Protein backbone atom coordinates (compact mmCIF):
# COMPACT_ATOMS: atom_id res chain seq x y z
CA UNK A 1 0.00 0.00 0.00
CA UNK A 2 2.89 2.30 0.84
CA UNK A 3 4.17 2.39 -2.72
CA UNK A 4 0.69 3.14 -3.97
CA UNK A 5 0.31 6.06 -1.55
CA UNK A 6 3.70 7.31 -2.57
CA UNK A 7 2.75 7.05 -6.19
CA UNK A 8 -0.49 8.84 -5.42
CA UNK A 9 1.39 11.57 -3.59
CA UNK A 10 3.68 12.16 -6.53
CA UNK A 11 0.75 12.06 -8.95
CA UNK A 12 -1.05 14.61 -6.74
CA UNK A 13 2.01 16.82 -6.82
CA UNK A 14 2.29 16.39 -10.57
CA UNK A 15 -1.37 17.27 -11.04
CA UNK A 16 -1.05 20.36 -8.85
CA UNK A 17 2.05 21.44 -10.79
CA UNK A 18 0.26 20.85 -14.07
CA UNK A 19 -2.77 22.83 -13.04
CA UNK A 20 -0.69 25.71 -11.72
CA UNK A 21 1.32 25.82 -14.93
CA UNK A 22 -1.80 25.67 -17.07
CA UNK A 23 -3.45 28.31 -14.88
CA UNK A 24 -0.45 30.59 -15.25
CA UNK A 25 -0.38 30.17 -19.01
CA UNK A 26 -4.08 30.73 -19.25
CA UNK A 27 -3.91 33.84 -17.08
CA UNK A 28 -0.97 35.39 -18.91
CA UNK A 29 -2.32 34.69 -22.37
CA UNK A 30 -5.51 36.55 -21.40
CA UNK A 31 -3.55 39.73 -20.53
CA UNK A 32 -4.45 42.60 -22.85
CA UNK A 33 -2.49 45.71 -21.84
CA UNK A 34 -0.22 47.18 -19.22
CA UNK A 35 -1.63 46.88 -15.71
CA UNK A 36 -1.74 50.65 -15.22
CA UNK A 37 -3.52 52.91 -14.76
CA UNK A 38 -6.49 51.33 -12.95
CA UNK A 39 -9.44 50.74 -15.31
CA UNK A 40 -11.97 53.58 -15.55
CA UNK A 41 -15.59 53.91 -16.60
CA UNK A 42 -16.24 53.22 -20.27
CA UNK A 43 -19.43 55.31 -20.43
CA UNK A 44 -17.91 58.33 -18.65
CA UNK A 45 -14.83 57.93 -20.83
CA UNK A 46 -16.88 58.10 -24.02
CA UNK A 47 -18.44 61.37 -22.85
CA UNK A 48 -15.18 62.95 -21.64
CA UNK A 49 -13.56 61.95 -24.94
CA UNK A 50 -16.39 63.43 -27.04
CA UNK A 51 -16.42 66.67 -25.04
CA UNK A 52 -12.66 67.25 -24.78
CA UNK A 53 -10.60 65.58 -27.44
CA UNK A 54 -11.56 68.00 -30.24
CA UNK A 55 -11.31 71.17 -28.16
CA UNK A 56 -7.77 72.04 -29.24
CA UNK A 57 -7.12 69.92 -32.31
CA UNK A 58 -8.77 67.60 -34.82
CA UNK A 59 -9.82 64.26 -33.41
CA UNK A 60 -7.07 61.65 -33.22
CA UNK A 61 -8.76 58.35 -33.97
CA UNK A 62 -8.41 55.53 -31.39
CA UNK A 63 -7.01 53.38 -34.24
CA UNK A 64 -4.01 55.67 -34.67
CA UNK A 65 -2.13 54.22 -31.72
CA UNK A 66 -1.70 50.95 -29.86
CA UNK A 67 -3.05 50.61 -26.33
CA UNK A 68 0.36 51.15 -24.70
CA UNK A 69 1.10 54.20 -26.88
CA UNK A 70 -2.25 55.67 -25.91
CA UNK A 71 -1.24 55.56 -22.23
CA UNK A 72 1.58 58.07 -22.80
CA UNK A 73 -0.50 60.23 -25.14
CA UNK A 74 -3.48 60.42 -22.83
CA UNK A 75 -1.22 61.22 -19.85
CA UNK A 76 0.40 63.90 -22.01
CA UNK A 77 -3.08 65.30 -22.66
CA UNK A 78 -3.95 65.01 -18.98
CA UNK A 79 -1.20 67.54 -18.26
CA UNK A 80 -1.95 69.72 -21.30
CA UNK A 81 -5.72 69.87 -20.96
CA UNK A 82 -6.00 69.79 -17.16
CA UNK A 83 -7.91 66.49 -17.03
CA UNK A 84 -8.49 64.93 -13.62
CA UNK A 85 -7.06 61.49 -12.83
CA UNK A 86 -10.53 59.96 -13.19
CA UNK A 87 -11.12 61.62 -16.57
CA UNK A 88 -7.73 60.32 -17.72
CA UNK A 89 -8.50 56.73 -16.70
CA UNK A 90 -12.01 56.91 -18.21
CA UNK A 91 -10.80 58.27 -21.57
CA UNK A 92 -8.05 55.67 -21.73
CA UNK A 93 -10.51 52.86 -20.98
CA UNK A 94 -12.77 54.14 -23.74
CA UNK A 95 -10.00 54.56 -26.34
CA UNK A 96 -8.42 51.17 -25.58
CA UNK A 97 -11.84 49.54 -25.95
CA UNK A 98 -12.71 51.50 -29.10
CA UNK A 99 -9.52 50.54 -30.95
CA UNK A 100 -9.95 46.88 -29.92
CA UNK A 101 -13.43 46.93 -31.42
CA UNK A 102 -12.07 48.54 -34.55
CA UNK A 103 -9.33 45.90 -34.77
CA UNK A 104 -11.98 43.18 -34.48
CA UNK A 105 -14.03 44.74 -37.24
CA UNK A 106 -10.90 44.85 -39.39
CA UNK A 107 -10.06 41.20 -38.71
CA UNK A 108 -13.63 40.19 -39.54
CA UNK A 109 -13.53 42.24 -42.74
CA UNK A 110 -10.24 40.59 -43.69
CA UNK A 111 -11.69 37.15 -42.98
CA UNK A 112 -14.72 37.96 -45.13
CA UNK A 113 -12.49 39.20 -47.96
CA UNK A 114 -10.41 36.03 -47.75
CA UNK A 115 -13.52 33.84 -47.83
CA UNK A 116 -14.78 35.74 -50.86
CA UNK A 117 -11.44 35.26 -52.58
CA UNK A 118 -11.51 31.54 -51.85
CA UNK A 119 -15.03 31.33 -53.21
CA UNK A 120 -14.01 33.20 -56.35
CA UNK A 121 -11.06 30.85 -56.83
CA UNK A 122 -13.28 27.80 -56.49
CA UNK A 123 -15.51 29.08 -59.30
Amino acid at each position, binding site marked *: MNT*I*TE*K*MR*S*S*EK*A*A*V*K*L*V*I*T*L*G*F*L*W*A*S*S*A*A*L*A*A*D*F*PAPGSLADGAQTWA*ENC*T*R*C*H*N*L*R*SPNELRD*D*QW*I*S*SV*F*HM*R*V*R*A*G*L*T*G*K*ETRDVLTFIQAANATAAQVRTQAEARAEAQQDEAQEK
Partner: protein
Amino acid sequence: MINIGNMKTSIVASTLIVGMLCGTNSIAAESLEELNEELEKLKERIGQLQIDSVRHSEAEEWRYSDSLVHLSGYADVGYQDSDSEDGSFNVGRFAPIFHYQYRDIVMLESELEIEVGDDGETEVKLEYLSVDVFLNDYITLVAGKFLSPIGQFRQNLHPSWINKLASAPTGFAHDGAAPVADVGFQLRGGFPLGRTRTNYALFVSNGPVLVAEFEDGEFELDGIEAEGAGSDEDGEKVYGGRFAVFPMSSLELGFSLASGKATVSDIHEGDSSILGGEGARDYDVIGADFAYQRNNFYLRGEYVESEVGGTAFGAAASEGAIWETWYTQASYRPGQSKFEYVMRYTDFDSPHDSADQEQWAIGLNYLLTNSAIFKLGYELNDGLTDSEADEDRLTVQLTYGF
Protein backbone atom coordinates in the same frame (compact mmCIF):
# COMPACT_ATOMS: atom_id res chain seq x y z
CA MET B 1 -1.71 41.78 -16.30
CA ILE B 2 -2.76 38.71 -14.33
CA ASN B 3 -6.40 38.00 -14.93
CA ILE B 4 -7.91 37.47 -11.47
CA GLY B 5 -11.06 35.83 -12.84
CA ASN B 6 -9.02 33.22 -14.66
CA MET B 7 -6.79 32.67 -11.62
CA LYS B 8 -9.86 31.87 -9.57
CA THR B 9 -11.13 29.47 -12.19
CA SER B 10 -7.79 27.71 -12.32
CA ILE B 11 -7.70 27.34 -8.54
CA VAL B 12 -11.15 25.79 -8.61
CA ALA B 13 -10.11 23.52 -11.48
CA SER B 14 -6.95 22.43 -9.67
CA THR B 15 -8.91 21.63 -6.52
CA LEU B 16 -11.29 19.50 -8.58
CA ILE B 17 -8.55 17.57 -10.33
CA VAL B 18 -6.59 17.07 -7.12
CA GLY B 19 -9.77 15.90 -5.41
CA MET B 20 -10.48 13.44 -8.18
CA LEU B 21 -6.98 12.02 -8.01
CA CYS B 22 -7.14 11.73 -4.21
CA GLY B 23 -10.42 9.87 -4.51
CA THR B 24 -8.68 7.11 -6.52
CA ASN B 25 -6.66 5.83 -3.54
CA SER B 26 -8.47 2.49 -3.69
CA ILE B 27 -7.27 1.90 -7.19
CA ALA B 28 -6.46 -1.73 -8.11
CA ALA B 29 -2.83 -2.80 -8.39
CA GLU B 30 -3.14 -3.92 -12.03
CA SER B 31 -3.98 -0.40 -13.15
CA LEU B 32 -0.74 0.81 -11.54
CA GLU B 33 1.18 0.11 -14.71
CA GLU B 34 -1.19 2.28 -16.72
CA LEU B 35 -1.06 4.94 -14.05
CA ASN B 36 2.72 4.93 -14.17
CA GLU B 37 2.65 5.39 -17.90
CA GLU B 38 0.19 8.22 -17.57
CA LEU B 39 2.39 9.84 -14.96
CA GLU B 40 5.46 9.66 -17.14
CA LYS B 41 3.51 11.33 -19.93
CA LEU B 42 2.24 13.99 -17.54
CA LYS B 43 5.77 14.69 -16.30
CA GLU B 44 7.01 15.06 -19.83
CA ARG B 45 4.13 17.37 -20.68
CA ILE B 46 4.75 19.50 -17.59
CA GLY B 47 8.42 19.83 -18.42
CA GLN B 48 7.52 21.05 -21.91
CA LEU B 49 4.90 23.43 -20.51
CA GLN B 50 7.41 24.88 -18.08
CA ILE B 51 9.83 25.57 -20.93
CA ASP B 52 6.99 27.09 -22.97
CA SER B 53 5.92 29.17 -20.01
CA VAL B 54 9.38 30.68 -19.52
CA ARG B 55 9.60 31.46 -23.24
CA HIS B 56 6.14 32.94 -23.15
CA SER B 57 6.85 35.22 -20.20
CA GLU B 58 10.12 36.34 -21.78
CA ALA B 59 8.24 37.27 -24.93
CA GLU B 60 5.67 39.10 -22.86
CA GLU B 61 8.02 41.05 -20.59
CA TRP B 62 8.65 43.92 -23.00
CA ARG B 63 4.91 44.39 -23.42
CA TYR B 64 4.17 44.55 -19.74
CA SER B 65 7.02 46.61 -18.35
CA ASP B 66 6.47 49.33 -15.76
CA SER B 67 7.90 52.02 -18.01
CA LEU B 68 6.80 53.25 -21.40
CA VAL B 69 8.73 54.98 -24.16
CA HIS B 70 6.77 56.94 -26.73
CA LEU B 71 7.79 59.18 -29.61
CA SER B 72 5.46 61.73 -31.19
CA GLY B 73 5.75 65.25 -32.57
CA TYR B 74 5.21 67.15 -35.78
CA ALA B 75 6.92 68.55 -38.83
CA ASP B 76 6.13 71.13 -41.46
CA VAL B 77 7.47 72.29 -44.81
CA GLY B 78 6.26 75.22 -46.85
CA TYR B 79 6.51 78.12 -49.23
CA GLN B 80 6.23 81.87 -48.60
CA ASP B 81 5.91 84.83 -50.88
CA SER B 82 5.66 88.43 -49.70
CA ASP B 83 5.45 91.83 -51.43
CA SER B 84 9.15 92.69 -51.27
CA GLU B 85 10.79 89.28 -51.24
CA ASP B 86 10.86 86.57 -53.88
CA GLY B 87 8.98 83.44 -52.96
CA SER B 88 11.02 80.72 -51.30
CA PHE B 89 10.55 77.22 -50.05
CA ASN B 90 11.27 76.57 -46.40
CA VAL B 91 11.75 73.47 -44.31
CA GLY B 92 9.79 74.90 -41.44
CA ARG B 93 10.60 72.61 -38.58
CA PHE B 94 10.93 69.09 -37.30
CA ALA B 95 9.74 68.86 -33.70
CA PRO B 96 10.08 65.41 -32.15
CA ILE B 97 8.49 64.84 -28.75
CA PHE B 98 9.89 62.23 -26.37
CA HIS B 99 7.78 60.67 -23.64
CA TYR B 100 9.11 58.39 -20.93
CA GLN B 101 6.62 57.27 -18.34
CA TYR B 102 6.88 55.20 -15.17
CA ARG B 103 3.43 53.76 -14.46
CA ASP B 104 0.98 56.53 -13.52
CA ILE B 105 3.51 58.14 -11.21
CA VAL B 106 5.89 60.19 -13.32
CA MET B 107 6.38 61.24 -16.93
CA LEU B 108 9.14 63.03 -18.78
CA GLU B 109 8.06 65.12 -21.75
CA SER B 110 10.49 66.87 -24.01
CA GLU B 111 10.21 68.54 -27.40
CA LEU B 112 13.08 69.58 -29.63
CA GLU B 113 12.60 72.14 -32.35
CA ILE B 114 14.92 71.65 -35.29
CA GLU B 115 14.84 74.34 -37.94
CA VAL B 116 16.79 75.20 -41.05
CA GLY B 117 17.53 78.94 -41.24
CA ASP B 118 17.67 81.20 -44.31
CA ASP B 119 21.40 80.50 -44.66
CA GLY B 120 20.95 76.72 -44.55
CA GLU B 121 22.28 76.36 -41.00
CA THR B 122 20.39 73.95 -38.76
CA GLU B 123 19.27 75.31 -35.43
CA VAL B 124 18.22 73.07 -32.55
CA LYS B 125 16.21 74.39 -29.63
CA LEU B 126 14.81 72.70 -26.57
CA GLU B 127 11.19 73.76 -26.81
CA TYR B 128 10.32 72.20 -23.48
CA LEU B 129 11.65 69.61 -21.05
CA SER B 130 9.76 68.79 -17.92
CA VAL B 131 9.41 66.02 -15.40
CA ASP B 132 5.73 65.68 -14.54
CA VAL B 133 4.81 64.07 -11.23
CA PHE B 134 1.17 62.99 -10.85
CA LEU B 135 0.73 63.97 -7.19
CA ASN B 136 -2.95 63.02 -7.05
CA ASP B 137 -6.06 63.07 -9.26
CA TYR B 138 -6.17 66.87 -9.24
CA ILE B 139 -2.57 68.11 -9.07
CA THR B 140 0.40 67.44 -11.35
CA LEU B 141 3.81 68.95 -10.62
CA VAL B 142 5.52 70.05 -13.82
CA ALA B 143 9.17 71.00 -13.28
CA GLY B 144 11.71 72.21 -15.83
CA LYS B 145 11.24 74.24 -18.98
CA PHE B 146 7.60 74.42 -19.97
CA LEU B 147 5.43 76.26 -22.52
CA SER B 148 3.99 79.38 -20.90
CA PRO B 149 0.63 78.57 -19.28
CA ILE B 150 -0.54 82.14 -20.07
CA GLY B 151 -3.44 81.98 -22.53
CA GLN B 152 -4.06 79.21 -25.05
CA PHE B 153 -2.02 79.82 -28.19
CA ARG B 154 1.44 78.86 -26.98
CA GLN B 155 0.57 75.85 -24.84
CA ASN B 156 -2.36 74.45 -26.82
CA LEU B 157 -2.38 75.68 -30.41
CA HIS B 158 1.08 76.48 -31.76
CA PRO B 159 2.07 73.08 -33.27
CA SER B 160 1.59 73.44 -37.03
CA TRP B 161 -0.81 70.48 -37.33
CA ILE B 162 -3.03 72.21 -34.73
CA ASN B 163 -2.65 75.87 -35.78
CA LYS B 164 -5.13 76.36 -38.62
CA LEU B 165 -2.93 78.99 -40.32
CA ALA B 166 0.76 78.78 -41.19
CA SER B 167 1.68 81.72 -38.94
CA ALA B 168 1.17 82.53 -35.28
CA PRO B 169 -1.05 85.56 -34.64
CA THR B 170 1.21 88.62 -34.40
CA GLY B 171 2.42 89.11 -30.83
CA PHE B 172 2.08 85.39 -30.01
CA ALA B 173 5.25 84.36 -31.81
CA HIS B 174 8.75 84.79 -30.39
CA ASP B 175 9.61 88.21 -28.93
CA GLY B 176 6.03 89.47 -28.86
CA ALA B 177 3.42 90.32 -26.26
CA ALA B 178 2.67 86.78 -25.10
CA PRO B 179 5.31 84.81 -23.17
CA VAL B 180 6.57 81.66 -24.93
CA ALA B 181 8.21 79.51 -22.25
CA ASP B 182 9.36 79.59 -18.65
CA VAL B 183 11.88 77.77 -16.48
CA GLY B 184 10.69 76.88 -13.00
CA PHE B 185 7.81 74.71 -11.89
CA GLN B 186 4.05 74.63 -12.11
CA LEU B 187 1.20 72.87 -10.39
CA ARG B 188 -1.58 72.10 -12.84
CA GLY B 189 -4.66 70.01 -13.28
CA GLY B 190 -8.41 70.27 -13.16
CA PHE B 191 -11.27 69.76 -10.77
CA PRO B 192 -15.07 69.83 -10.94
CA LEU B 193 -16.92 72.80 -9.40
CA GLY B 194 -20.33 71.25 -8.93
CA ARG B 195 -21.17 70.13 -12.46
CA THR B 196 -18.78 72.65 -14.05
CA ARG B 197 -15.37 71.53 -15.30
CA THR B 198 -12.36 73.74 -14.54
CA ASN B 199 -8.65 73.61 -15.19
CA TYR B 200 -5.76 75.56 -13.74
CA ALA B 201 -2.00 76.13 -13.84
CA LEU B 202 0.05 77.99 -11.22
CA PHE B 203 3.74 78.65 -11.80
CA VAL B 204 6.94 80.13 -10.36
CA SER B 205 9.71 80.87 -12.86
CA ASN B 206 12.91 82.78 -13.60
CA GLY B 207 10.83 85.11 -15.73
CA PRO B 208 11.91 86.79 -18.97
CA VAL B 209 15.07 88.57 -20.07
CA LEU B 210 14.66 92.17 -21.22
CA VAL B 211 16.42 93.56 -24.26
CA ALA B 212 17.31 97.27 -24.50
CA GLU B 213 18.11 99.30 -27.58
CA PHE B 214 20.12 102.48 -28.06
CA GLU B 215 18.21 104.90 -30.23
CA ASP B 216 18.27 108.68 -30.70
CA GLY B 217 20.95 109.11 -28.03
CA GLU B 218 19.19 107.20 -25.28
CA PHE B 219 18.27 103.70 -24.15
CA GLU B 220 14.80 102.32 -24.48
CA LEU B 221 13.23 98.88 -24.08
CA ASP B 222 13.43 96.85 -27.27
CA GLY B 223 11.63 93.66 -26.33
CA ILE B 224 10.77 90.98 -23.82
CA GLU B 225 12.47 87.67 -24.42
CA ALA B 226 10.12 85.35 -22.57
CA GLU B 227 11.56 82.13 -23.96
CA GLY B 228 12.51 80.34 -20.77
CA ALA B 229 15.76 81.87 -19.55
CA GLY B 230 18.07 79.36 -17.89
CA SER B 231 19.14 81.80 -15.17
CA ASP B 232 17.56 84.64 -13.23
CA GLU B 233 19.64 87.84 -13.41
CA ASP B 234 17.83 89.65 -10.62
CA GLY B 235 17.08 86.60 -8.47
CA GLU B 236 13.45 87.77 -8.25
CA LYS B 237 10.94 85.24 -9.47
CA VAL B 238 7.83 85.63 -11.58
CA TYR B 239 4.58 84.12 -10.22
CA GLY B 240 1.54 83.49 -12.36
CA GLY B 241 -1.07 81.16 -13.71
CA ARG B 242 -4.24 80.58 -15.63
CA PHE B 243 -7.67 79.51 -14.48
CA ALA B 244 -10.38 78.34 -16.89
CA VAL B 245 -14.02 77.34 -16.51
CA PHE B 246 -16.53 75.67 -18.81
CA PRO B 247 -19.91 77.38 -18.29
CA MET B 248 -21.08 74.74 -20.81
CA SER B 249 -19.15 71.85 -22.28
CA SER B 250 -18.67 73.67 -25.60
CA LEU B 251 -17.34 76.93 -24.13
CA GLU B 252 -14.08 77.55 -22.27
CA LEU B 253 -13.27 80.88 -20.62
CA GLY B 254 -9.74 81.45 -19.35
CA PHE B 255 -8.03 84.17 -17.33
CA SER B 256 -4.27 84.53 -16.94
CA LEU B 257 -2.01 86.62 -14.73
CA ALA B 258 1.72 86.83 -14.06
CA SER B 259 3.71 89.23 -11.96
CA GLY B 260 7.31 89.63 -10.85
CA LYS B 261 10.56 91.33 -11.80
CA ALA B 262 12.65 91.32 -14.96
CA THR B 263 15.98 92.95 -15.80
CA VAL B 264 17.70 94.19 -18.94
CA SER B 265 20.54 91.80 -19.73
CA ASP B 266 20.98 92.22 -23.45
CA ILE B 267 21.36 95.08 -25.91
CA HIS B 268 19.86 94.73 -29.37
CA GLU B 269 22.68 94.96 -31.94
CA GLY B 270 24.97 96.39 -29.25
CA ASP B 271 27.64 95.52 -26.73
CA SER B 272 25.94 93.95 -23.70
CA SER B 273 29.13 94.19 -21.63
CA ILE B 274 28.45 97.89 -20.95
CA LEU B 275 25.45 96.87 -18.83
CA GLY B 276 25.92 97.13 -15.07
CA GLY B 277 23.81 97.66 -11.97
CA GLU B 278 20.59 97.33 -13.99
CA GLY B 279 17.49 97.86 -11.86
CA ALA B 280 14.96 95.02 -11.56
CA ARG B 281 11.79 96.27 -13.25
CA ASP B 282 8.18 95.38 -12.57
CA TYR B 283 6.87 92.78 -15.02
CA ASP B 284 3.13 92.12 -15.28
CA VAL B 285 1.09 90.07 -17.74
CA ILE B 286 -2.68 89.82 -18.00
CA GLY B 287 -4.61 87.68 -20.42
CA ALA B 288 -8.10 86.45 -21.24
CA ASP B 289 -9.18 83.78 -23.72
CA PHE B 290 -12.27 82.00 -24.93
CA ALA B 291 -12.93 78.98 -27.12
CA TYR B 292 -16.29 77.90 -28.48
CA GLN B 293 -17.04 74.82 -30.49
CA ARG B 294 -20.14 73.54 -32.18
CA ASN B 295 -19.75 70.47 -34.37
CA ASN B 296 -17.01 71.48 -36.82
CA PHE B 297 -17.36 75.22 -36.23
CA TYR B 298 -14.78 76.83 -33.95
CA LEU B 299 -14.63 80.38 -32.67
CA ARG B 300 -11.79 81.35 -30.40
CA GLY B 301 -9.86 84.42 -29.33
CA GLU B 302 -7.46 85.76 -26.79
CA TYR B 303 -6.01 88.96 -25.44
CA VAL B 304 -2.57 89.39 -23.80
CA GLU B 305 -0.84 92.44 -22.42
CA SER B 306 2.73 92.48 -21.06
CA GLU B 307 3.84 95.55 -19.16
CA VAL B 308 7.42 96.34 -18.08
CA GLY B 309 8.05 99.13 -15.58
CA GLY B 310 10.74 101.84 -15.75
CA THR B 311 13.94 102.05 -13.73
CA ALA B 312 16.40 104.80 -12.85
CA PHE B 313 19.23 102.36 -12.19
CA GLY B 314 21.81 100.89 -14.52
CA ALA B 315 23.44 101.75 -17.82
CA ALA B 316 20.23 101.00 -19.77
CA ALA B 317 17.90 102.83 -17.37
CA SER B 318 14.74 103.88 -19.20
CA GLU B 319 11.00 104.27 -19.01
CA GLY B 320 8.68 101.29 -19.06
CA ALA B 321 6.71 99.95 -22.04
CA ILE B 322 3.63 97.93 -22.95
CA TRP B 323 3.11 95.19 -25.55
CA GLU B 324 -0.45 94.23 -26.32
CA THR B 325 -2.15 91.90 -28.78
CA TRP B 326 -5.41 90.09 -29.45
CA TYR B 327 -6.88 87.87 -32.10
CA THR B 328 -10.16 86.16 -32.98
CA GLN B 329 -10.31 83.16 -35.27
CA ALA B 330 -13.24 81.37 -36.85
CA SER B 331 -12.94 78.09 -38.70
CA TYR B 332 -15.45 75.76 -40.27
CA ARG B 333 -15.35 72.35 -41.86
CA PRO B 334 -18.68 71.42 -43.44
CA GLY B 335 -19.78 67.93 -42.41
CA GLN B 336 -17.19 65.29 -43.22
CA SER B 337 -15.65 67.47 -45.93
CA LYS B 338 -11.86 67.37 -46.35
CA PHE B 339 -11.82 71.17 -46.67
CA GLU B 340 -11.69 73.63 -43.81
CA TYR B 341 -12.11 77.40 -44.08
CA VAL B 342 -10.30 79.76 -41.66
CA MET B 343 -10.36 83.47 -40.94
CA ARG B 344 -8.37 85.35 -38.30
CA TYR B 345 -8.12 88.97 -37.23
CA THR B 346 -5.13 90.16 -35.17
CA ASP B 347 -4.19 93.57 -33.75
CA PHE B 348 -0.70 93.93 -32.24
CA ASP B 349 0.44 97.05 -30.47
CA SER B 350 4.01 97.54 -29.26
CA PRO B 351 6.21 100.47 -28.15
CA HIS B 352 7.72 100.46 -31.65
CA ASP B 353 5.58 101.84 -34.46
CA SER B 354 7.47 99.78 -37.04
CA ALA B 355 6.41 96.51 -35.38
CA ASP B 356 2.73 97.34 -34.88
CA GLN B 357 0.45 95.36 -37.13
CA GLU B 358 -3.17 94.81 -37.93
CA GLN B 359 -3.81 91.61 -39.85
CA TRP B 360 -6.59 89.80 -41.64
CA ALA B 361 -5.63 86.27 -42.52
CA ILE B 362 -7.68 83.79 -44.54
CA GLY B 363 -6.95 80.15 -45.10
CA LEU B 364 -8.14 77.10 -46.97
CA ASN B 365 -6.99 73.77 -45.57
CA TYR B 366 -7.18 70.30 -47.05
CA LEU B 367 -7.13 67.47 -44.51
CA LEU B 368 -5.25 64.46 -45.89
CA THR B 369 -5.84 62.97 -42.45
CA ASN B 370 -6.84 64.67 -39.22
CA SER B 371 -3.22 65.56 -38.52
CA ALA B 372 -1.67 65.72 -41.99
CA ILE B 373 -2.86 68.99 -43.48
CA PHE B 374 -2.20 71.00 -46.59
CA LYS B 375 -2.67 74.73 -45.81
CA LEU B 376 -3.02 77.62 -48.17
CA GLY B 377 -3.17 81.07 -46.57
CA TYR B 378 -3.09 84.76 -47.35
CA GLU B 379 -2.29 87.56 -44.89
CA LEU B 380 -3.44 91.11 -45.47
CA ASN B 381 -1.07 93.09 -43.27
CA ASP B 382 -1.38 96.68 -42.27
CA GLY B 383 1.62 98.32 -40.55
CA LEU B 384 3.89 101.33 -40.79
CA THR B 385 4.22 102.21 -44.50
CA ASP B 386 7.24 100.51 -46.13
CA SER B 387 7.93 98.45 -43.02
CA GLU B 388 8.02 94.66 -43.09
CA ALA B 389 4.87 94.71 -40.96
CA ASP B 390 2.98 96.26 -43.86
CA GLU B 391 3.67 93.53 -46.40
CA ASP B 392 1.01 91.06 -47.46
CA ARG B 393 2.04 87.41 -47.58
CA LEU B 394 1.07 84.20 -49.29
CA THR B 395 1.79 81.06 -47.29
CA VAL B 396 1.64 77.41 -48.29
CA GLN B 397 2.31 74.72 -45.73
CA LEU B 398 2.23 70.96 -45.49
CA THR B 399 2.21 69.74 -41.92
CA TYR B 400 2.10 66.36 -40.26
CA GLY B 401 1.50 65.65 -36.57
CA PHE B 402 2.47 62.11 -35.66
